[in-house]
């Protein structure tokens, strides 16, 4: 076991921890810091349940080694809102009944927030008909493509898309 001291900000709070070099950001959050809002699904970057915002962009925390996160700013679902003051995207998921079991939901919400920011920054997608149109016009097809890194095994996709569409500014 080879350990490293690590300082990083999680939901704007500085954490100083000691991590095994093998530890992923996902396991640091869940096992060491007990921030269990972020979920482990496949642990191979395919399901998106572990999605968090790392320095503002959405990433699979299961594929990030914690030791590489020195000085980084991580936002998890716990940092988005509180039970009394939900983030607008959380509120939209509630209003649109965009879940069944809820396991994929923290990842879906973090991913949707990161995705909308990508669109504002002009990131194209596979289904964007023109690479010249910036930013892309978000319709159902665009949302489904841009959210393809988040699986929902209950199949709540119809309402997930509606919830995200309601937040397109």
């Amino acid at each position, binding site marked *: 076991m*080879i350990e490293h001291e690590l300082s990083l900000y999680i939901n704007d709070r500085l954490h100083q921890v000691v991590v095994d070099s*093998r530890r992923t950001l996902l396991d640091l959050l869940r096992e060491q810091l007990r921030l269990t809002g972020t979920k482990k699904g496949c642990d191979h970057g395919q399901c998106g349940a572990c999605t968090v915002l790392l320095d503002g962009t959405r990433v*699979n925390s299961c*594929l990030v080694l914690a030791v590489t996160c020195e000085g980084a700013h991580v936002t998890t679902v716990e940092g988005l809102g509180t039970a009394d003051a939900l983030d607008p995207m959380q509120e939209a998921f509630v209003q649109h009944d965009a879940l069944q079991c809820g396991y994929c939901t923290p990842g879906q919400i973090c991913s949707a927030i990161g995705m909308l920011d990508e669109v504002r920054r002009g990131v194209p997608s596979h289904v964007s008909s023109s690479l010249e149109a910036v930013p892309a016009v978000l319709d159902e097809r665009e949302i489904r493509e841009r959210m393809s890194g988040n699986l929902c095994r209950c199949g709540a996709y119809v309402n997930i898309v509606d919830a995200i569409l309601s937040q397109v500014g």
Partner: protein
Amino acid sequence: MRPFEYFRPSSLADAAQLGAVSGAKYIAGGTNLVDLMKLGVEQPDRVVDLRDVLEQEIQELEDGSIRIGAGVRNTDLASHPLIRRQYPAMSRAIVAGASGQIRNVATTGGNLLQRTRCVYFQDVSRPCNKRAPGTGCPALESGGLSRGLAIFRTSEECIATHPSDLAVALVAFDAELALWRDGQERRLPLEQLYTSQESAPGRETILEPGEIITAVHLPAPVDGRRSHYVKVRDRASFAFSLVSVAAAVELDGDTVRGVRIALGGVASRPWRARSAEQAIQGAPATSANFSRAIRDELTTAVPTADNRFKLALAHNLVVSTLEELI
């Protein structure tokens, strides 16, 4: 996962020295390496993080060529105005691969060095000539799974495909790499990065220990050239290609003045269809000519019973992509 030392050097010289020892692996985005370490396919003793030493910029140089830092993230490369305007096939190739989360982390250099997704390579309980030389290849045995694997054989021992979409587009544009070693930068055509793999499918690139890709150079754009990237896969999104094509065409009236065709999902490396290009160049831009040219190129393919469909797929995809560009 086996324990490993972790280093985060602040200079290329330190990175080269730390990475030159046996058992060391470089990490940039890590989206492929970390996955392979979890699977036990990669078992480095030492991981050297390149995040502080790789170039992160995309620059237009005086001669009109473009230098892309090896540390530029896939999302940022696909979104860059110069790339989407002058090299649309590259933007299209990037967004045709992986997911938003992975593209945000994966780097330009790492994308080119990712390993095959052949199921046998990724499963350490199975033999694999690429992962464990000489143990055999279940994909080549009867009943083996080879639907997604190569039709152009570069090795008798392995039919794994190179998984990158970006590399296919870059090969079509004659991209070059900037490689750093012993304090010197050298240039190498990207196509020559990948070995023929004839007798050693595990040795995929010509990179020496401690050698680092620092940038990718794109030749200046050509007036009147149109380019496109089309990918066919088993599902609509977030899947590796069965066959993909990067193509670029310049016309002179009804005649093809220049053409580039590179195929993905068909070989151990991006497959530049040079004989098809030669047949098309200087000839009238007709579907019949395109069809004949790619049909001839495909005569050297050796498909398995499982992936014979790729012959018709590659043919139709090349013809329809070229038709779209004229």
